């Protein structure tokens, strides 16, 4: 596999994950449990969209053929999306959303820290900025998971349930294929097995303080890298892409 092609796919993996999670979090707009959290989730969403745009633009510049950030976001079908499966899972209740945030933002934080050492200047520049945002998101979700875990019996039960439900999608975040092999050999992207070790440490420091337990889950669901998604992605894309599909090229 050529390096450029691998960089293109790597950009899509990160950008797709951010776009889909941003879309999910935006669903909370006007439905947050309190005004501050409504603002928080849409602010995080905005950061994620911004990060996605940067990498879609980079991917489009590699692809050529008049590709743009918008064409990549709005005109690819479900099987062409290579986001991590965890981000497409429905919001559930507030505890569920915060647990998903914790699991994913701690992955992002560790990934971006590694990409900041990349031999690719664009990845390095992107990660230097994005890591600050990921850290802020991680702090926000960590505080909530601790608060909910230590809170009432009901909040603890719901938070534990969210961890039990979401855990099966976590292995998918660290799946690697020939794209990773190529980029690891060029010093462009990190070995995700190393990221996984850092990730589990940061997640467990939060769950331990929250009094929550990590489930033993033999059942694992993977497929993000290959575009094999859970049933939810198609529904998100229907809403996300509707305008460009119905009115091609519409802009404002």
């Amino acid at each position, binding site marked *: 596999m050529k390096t450029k092609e691998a960089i293109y796919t790597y950009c899509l993996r990160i950008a797709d994950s951010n776009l889909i999670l941003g879309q999910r979090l935006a669903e909370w707009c006007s439905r947050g449990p309190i005004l*501050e959290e409504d*603002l*928080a989730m849409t*602010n*995080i969403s*905005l*950061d*994620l*969209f*911004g*990060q996605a*745009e*940067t990498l879609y633009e980079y991917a489009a510049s590699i692809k050529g053929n008049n590709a743009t950030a918008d064409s990549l976001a709005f005109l690819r079908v479900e099987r062409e999306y290579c986001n991590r499966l965890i981000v497409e899972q429905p919001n559930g209740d507030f505890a569920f959303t915060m647990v998903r945030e914790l699991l994913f933002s701690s992955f992002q934080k560790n990934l971006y820290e590694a990409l900041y050492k990349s031999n690719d*200047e*664009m990845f*390095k*520049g*992107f990660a*230097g*900025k*994005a890591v*600050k*945002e990921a*850290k*802020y998101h991680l*702090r*926000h979700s960590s*505080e909530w998971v601790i608060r909910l875990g230590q809170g009432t019996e009901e909040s603890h039960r719901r938070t534990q349930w969210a961890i039990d439900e979401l855990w099966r999608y976590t292995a998918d975040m660290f799946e690697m294929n020939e794209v990773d092999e190529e980029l690891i050999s060029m010093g462009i992207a990190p070995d995700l097995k190393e990221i996984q070790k850092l990730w589990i440490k940061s997640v467990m420091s939060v769950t331990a303080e929250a009094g929550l337990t990590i489930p033993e889950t033999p059942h694992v669901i993977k497929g993000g890298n290959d575009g094999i998604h859970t049933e939810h992605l198609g529904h998100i894309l229907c809403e996300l892409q509707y305008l460009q599909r119905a009115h091609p090229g519409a802009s404002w």
Partner: protein
Amino acid sequence: MVNTEPLSEYKIMELLAQIPDPDIPVVSIVELGIVRDVQVDDASKVTVTITPTYSGCPAMSVFKEDIRETLLKNGAKEVDIKISFTPAWTTDWLSESTRYKMRKHGIAPPETNSSDPVALFSSGKQKIKCPHCSKTDTNLTSQFGSTPCKAIWFCNSCNQPFEYFKCY
């Protein structure tokens, strides 16, 4: 008025220093630190390099339009705006006078250096000085505020909410 004087890099910086941040109008885009480089050639083609504050900050598109409009109005024949990611923007670039202006405007400026491990997370033990009464009996209300760059705090001394420009 037709400006016949050729544009110098110095003059361009002076012009850019008059463009306000759309969200914090007392601070210019130069003071904010987003203008990283300015170049002008003999044909008055200007290249401005800027760096984004937050990845998704909506003000970025306003910055670009304002820069283009201001320079074209003042003698530039063509304006090219480049985006640079390295070095990443940081609030460490805000000068003392910029911080003073923010405080006057009711926004508490960042209090620590961005390399400080607790910089981003002013929650916990760190207390932010109220821009209204300068007391430090304050509490974090919300980590997120009206723009990506600000958090919301509350002052227990003067009973006023205020915005804190996050250390980033």
